Structures are given as structure tokens and as C-alpha cells.
């Protein structure tokens, strides 16, 4: 799949079909998910209606981490094999990733106010998501560091790989620091986790977020390929080389 799509031509052909599908699925599941989470699901016995924030917050957090993981994988491929499409892909994951992280921080803060009576708490998970936010920012600014795009992309990919250390920290932070933040409810399927009437809206929203992520990054990759193609077409012929014996 990945090697098949590694060719820009094939990717463009794939994106022409897949992008609308992703877009439609994102839109439909978002509308349905919003309806489910706002109206179609019961309030929590502890948190009341505040629990509805979960349906926007948790998928944002997941997608922020997923986007960073994808970013790291693409960066690794671009660094090791110098594949130009991996460069483009990595850059295209960064902006949606930054947006998800920002959304996660904002909704988390809005959720925290009614439930914990504080906008912000310096616990492990929140701090590490904030760190993720800064890493995204640093990645984007290194990505436009020098005018030579290839060089900037390569430098940014190095930063992305070093920054990946933060992802497992976010994942395990709730277990390492016992604080306000509730531990993951979905991961322990054996234990009584989320009731189905809450699980469904959550999963629908996760689908909406991930298909949106797919749609957004695919459009970004598409645009980038096309603009590089026009830039290449406009490129002047190089200097003529002559070698004479003196």
C-alpha cells in the first residue's frame, strides 16, 4: 500500500478517488456524531452534561498523537530513503496535527472548568500535550528555516524524530503521575469501561476526526505535488559545461 502510493502519479490517481470519499465520510460522521453526542446520549451520572465535551476532546487527543506518529514515520522514510513524497507527506500531517493538539488543549480546558473547577492543571498529561503543541510549532518553523526546501524538510524530519519521545510520555503520563486527569477508559476492554450509549458517539467522532485528517492531509499532499510540478516545469536549463585542455 505505502510503496504503491510512494509514486506521485499513482498517489494523485488514488487521491482523486479517495479524497472525496474521505471528505463525505468525515462530514456525515461528524454530523451524526455531533447529534449523538449532544442529543442522542445520556448525561453522565457524575459529570452531568459536562461529559459531552469528551466526544470532541478525546478524539482530538487521539488524532493529535496519531498525526504526530504519522509525521514521525514519514520523516523517518524521508530521512533514510530521501523520498520526496515522504517529505511532502510529513509536512502535510503537521498542520492538521497542530490543529488537533490546539483543539485538544482548548476543549480539555473547557471541560476541566466545570468538572475540576480549574481551567488548567500542570499534570503530566496536560503538560506533555502542551509540549507536543510546542514541538509541532518548532517542527513547522524549522520546516521553513532556509529557502532550500529539501534542506529544511530534512532538518525538520530530524527534529520530528527526536520529538517522538514525547508520544509515549503522553500515553503513559496518566499512569505515571496520579492527578486530576482520568485514566484511559477505552483501553481496558475487560474492565467495565464506557457504556455502549457513550461509546458509540465517541467512536463516531473518532471516525469523523480521522477521516477529516485523511482528507486534509491528502489535499495538502495533492496541492504540494501539483505546485512542485509547475515549479519544475518553469525551471531554467542549467549552465552549459565545456572542458578544454589548456
Amino acid at each position, binding site marked *: 500500500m505505502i510503496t504503491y502510493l510512494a509514486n506521485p502519479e499513482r498517489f494523485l490517481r488514488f487521491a482523486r478517488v479517495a479524497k472525496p470519499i474521505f471528505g463525505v465520510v468525515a462530514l456525515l460522521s461528524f454530523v451524526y456524531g455531533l447529534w449523538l453526542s449532544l442529543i442522542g446520549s445520556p448525561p453522565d451520572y457524575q459529570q452531568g452534561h459536562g461529559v459531552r465535551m469528551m466526544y470532541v476532546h478525546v478524539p482530538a487527543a487521539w488524532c493529535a498523537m496519531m498525526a504526530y506518529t504519522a509525521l514521525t514515520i514519514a520523516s523517518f522514510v524521508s530521512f533514510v530513503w530521501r523520498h520526496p513524497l515522504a517529505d511532502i507527506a510529513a509536512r502535510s500531517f503537521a498542520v492538521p496535527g497542530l490543529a488537533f493538539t490546539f483543539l485538544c488543549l482548548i476543549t480539555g480546558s473547557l471541560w476541566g472548568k466545570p468538572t475540576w473547577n480549574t481551567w488548567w492543571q500542570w499534570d503530566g498529561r496536560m*503538560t506533555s500535550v502542551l*509540549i507536543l503543541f*510546542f*514541538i509541532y510549532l518548532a517542527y513547522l518553523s*524549522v520546516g521553513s*528555516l532556509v529557502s532550500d526546501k529539501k*534542506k529544511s524538510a530534512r*532538518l525538520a524530519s*530530524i527534529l520530528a524524530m*527526536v520529538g517522538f519521545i514525547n508520544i509515549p510520555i503522553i500515553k503513559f503520563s496518566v499512569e505515571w503521575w496520579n492527578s486530576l486527569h482520568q485514566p484511559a477508559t477505552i483501553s481496558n476492554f475487560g474492565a467495565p469501561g464506557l457504556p455502549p450509549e457513550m461509546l458509540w458517539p465517541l467512536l463516531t467522532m473518532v471516525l469523523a476526526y480521522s477521516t477529516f485528517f485523511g482528507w486534509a492531509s491528502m489535499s495538502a499532499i495533492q496541492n504540494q505535488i501539483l505546485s512542485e510540478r509547475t515549479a519544475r516545469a518553469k525551471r531554467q536549463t542549467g549552465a552549459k559545461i565545456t572542458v578544454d585542455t589548456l
Partner: protein
Amino acid sequence: MQIDIIKRDLLLATRSKGDWVMGVIFFAVFLALAVIALGNDSALLRQIAPAIVWLAFLMSALLSFGQIFTQDYEDGTLAQILIFQQSPLKIVSAKFIAYIITALMPLWFAIPLAGLMFNLTIDVIAGLMLSVLIGLPAIAAYGIFASALTVVKGASGVLIVLICAPFLMPVLIFGISAVDIYTVEGLWSAPYKALFGLSLIACATALPAASASIKTGFE
């Protein structure tokens, strides 16, 4: 060859007297400003002294990150060294050691002075010095990394801070909690182990990343 670079950097540091002194002066000024801002409540000052001193140390270090590679890059020395010995990791590790000796150690030796300013007990000063010492490789490694990543652009202070800050936040968090716990549990407590782990991870990831950045900078 590392030893040659370290020797040269030490010689350069003794010749250009100003640079490392400036770091220590900044450290002292930062502490003085913090004390003025926080008022003269000595109980409060003693309580938050570890955080202030750690912050002052980190700020002074952040200021000096930009200079690690800039001069060698701009006068062509870095290219020459790379051409002679195409192993950027050797250069990076030499610079790492030289940077610790010339820039961070003078700051580290200034910590007891800070202890005097805050009227700290010997225990707390010892805890501070130990926690900074254990976190020091992480600070230097990420500093070298940020400096190497931005060297093609010349010294770009704000960007260096943006790159380092996410990685140094955990160091700061554990560093400060290490000082608080030193008087109770001593050196074998969790924050010290975490700091040690952070330093190990930093050396294992940031130093190779710095050498890859240096190489990329010339491509």
C-alpha cells in the same frame, strides 16, 4: 581528534575572557531580579529558591546555545573539520564536552553563591548542585541539537528557545522536584533517577540528531 577540538575550545575560552563570564553575570542578575520581584519574604524565598535557581541556570544556558556552532560555521572551521574527518558525531561529541566545560561548569560553580543570596542550608545547596549536575548532560545535548539544527540560519535565538523548550520542560520539572526531595530521601529518589534517565535519552537521541543536522546543513 575529539581531544584536539576540546583543547582548542578551552584555549579559545581562556583567550576570549568575556564570554563565559557573561553567562555567570546573567545568572546572578536573573537571580537578583527574581528576588526583587518576589519581595523580601525570606521564608517564601527559601521555599521557591530551587525553582528560581533552576530557572536561572536554564535561562543562562539557553542564552549560550546560539554560540555553540555559529562561530565555527561562519568562519569556515566547521566545513574544514568535516572535510578532514567526515564524522560529524565526533565533532558533536567534542563540542558537547567543550560546551559543558566552558559554559555550563562556570554556571554550576556559581550555584553556591545563589545559595548565599537565598540563605539556603547546605543540604538544599547540595541537592541543587546534584540535580543540576545530573540534568546537565540533557541541557547540553538539547542545546547542541538546537544549535546544530539552526546553524545554517546563523544564530537565531528565539527559534533555538522554541526547539529546546519542549525537551527541557521535563528536565526542569524533575530537576526542581529533585531538590525538594533531596533533604528527605537523598540521592536515590525517583526525580534523580528520572533526571538521569532524561540525560541518557538526551545523549542517545539529541547528539546523533545534532550530527545529522550538521551534515544536512552542508548538503
